[in-house]
């Protein structure tokens, strides 16, 4: 019962923190755009938070440049458990267009564990919503 309540609350109120680890901005704009009236992520209780301490889901864009890698790790560590990381965009998944550039690590999963990958360049806001919905769906089934 308590478990159920826990998952319910968790699924209904995922607060996100957005981190750009060297993205081209495309995915960042789309992340923001998905909070806007047309897509309105708040419908699902998703709020964009400013500090890692308040967040449940780290929405990370970008191929992880060498300079941001440490930051990314630190922000991840600052987040309270349970926490999830969503890799948004081709670059966050694997480096995308930036594969082979000398200053990128090619993918967030090189630095922090990733719970869901959303491919696209950029991901459409719809795809983002879809990805988050899939992640939440998996949480629900996992605990059920």
């Amino acid at each position, binding site marked *: 019962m308590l478990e159920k309540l826990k998952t319910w*609350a968790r699924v209904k109120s995922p607060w996100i923190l957005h981190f750009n680890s060297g993205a081209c901005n495309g995915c960042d704009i789309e992340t923001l755009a998905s909070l806007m009236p047309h897509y309105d992520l*708040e419908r699902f209780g998703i709020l964009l938070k400013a500090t890692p301490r308040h967040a449940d889901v780290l929405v990370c864009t970008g191929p992880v440049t060498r300079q941001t890698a440490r930051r990314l790790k630190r922000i991840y560590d600052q987040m309270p458990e349970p926490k999830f990381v969503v890799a948004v965009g081709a670059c966050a998944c694997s480096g995308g267009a930036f594969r082979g550039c000398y200053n990128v690590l090619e993918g967030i999963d090189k630095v922090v564990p990733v719970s869901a990958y959303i491919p696209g360049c950029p991901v459409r806001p719809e795809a983002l919503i879809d990805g988050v919905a899939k992640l939440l769906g998996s949480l629900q089934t996992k605990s059920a």
Partner: protein
Amino acid sequence: MEVVKPLLYILVFPGFLFQFVFSTYLEWMDRKFYARMQNRRGPLYTGFRGVLQPVADILKLFFKEDIVPARADRFMFSLMPILGLAAVVTAGLYLPVWLFTPYNSFEGDLIVVLYLLSLPSLVLFLAGWFSVSPYSLIGATRVLTQLFAYEVPFFLALLTPAVVAGSWQIQKIAVYPWTSGSWWVIGIQLLAFLVALLTLQAKLERVPFDIPEAETEVVGGPLTEYSGKKLAMFRIQKDILMLVGSAFIAALFFGGFPGGLWIGGLWLLVKTSIVVFLLSVIRASFARIRIDQIVTFSWKYLAPASLVQLLVVLILKGNGVL
């Protein structure tokens, strides 16, 4: 029995449980109004139309890991959320909910409530201060600066109905328009009502007065370092503060509760909702002002306005119109 009754008061009605339910409902309404004004939907899928959204938020926070930053003062850091919550819940006990007199109503409880309502700001200041991170320190100083700016106009504005009713007891002020039969006093206090509304907004640290928590400037302000349960307590505190604040303003300016339990209850709901609606209109239609601007604003406009209002009421009173 003697023990159970006050306990019930504190924990269930009109204490914590009632306040919690009511206040989450108000938060939902506020978010909904705000979203709709921005042409979007707001919380929608948590419970009916999203009513349970605030509850889900708080519950989720309770189930989360609770981190105390290494640099923070552990004891004070943990004490603050509880203190803040206690203050607002106590203030809420004096809320004239319906017809029956609050458990511990007494002559002068208005002052006590005003005092209790400024406690959360102090708590916030201390919370920021003891979490020792640059953002929370700046946030904390801002809380304090802002406090000095709005507190005086807030007091003055709430003084008006007290003077009109000639009492310091919330209960009496609230029933005054009804018992005296002079409905129209609601009309002449509009200016004070406006000031009270704005200063309440400042107390709640919402746009345009959300300076201490300005996301784009100081991240999360005093609460930057809080997470998990403690953050949840702060959220409850904020919600209840909104409930208590708006219910008080509603009670003092719109009068009490005619017509028994149900109609009285409904009236409470309606008038509080109206105040919350006005608050969210304010939130939606302004940009955040700067800390120096709020100080000038409140000393240049708000304080004089509330003084003028007080003067008007005093003159009317002196001439025996009231």
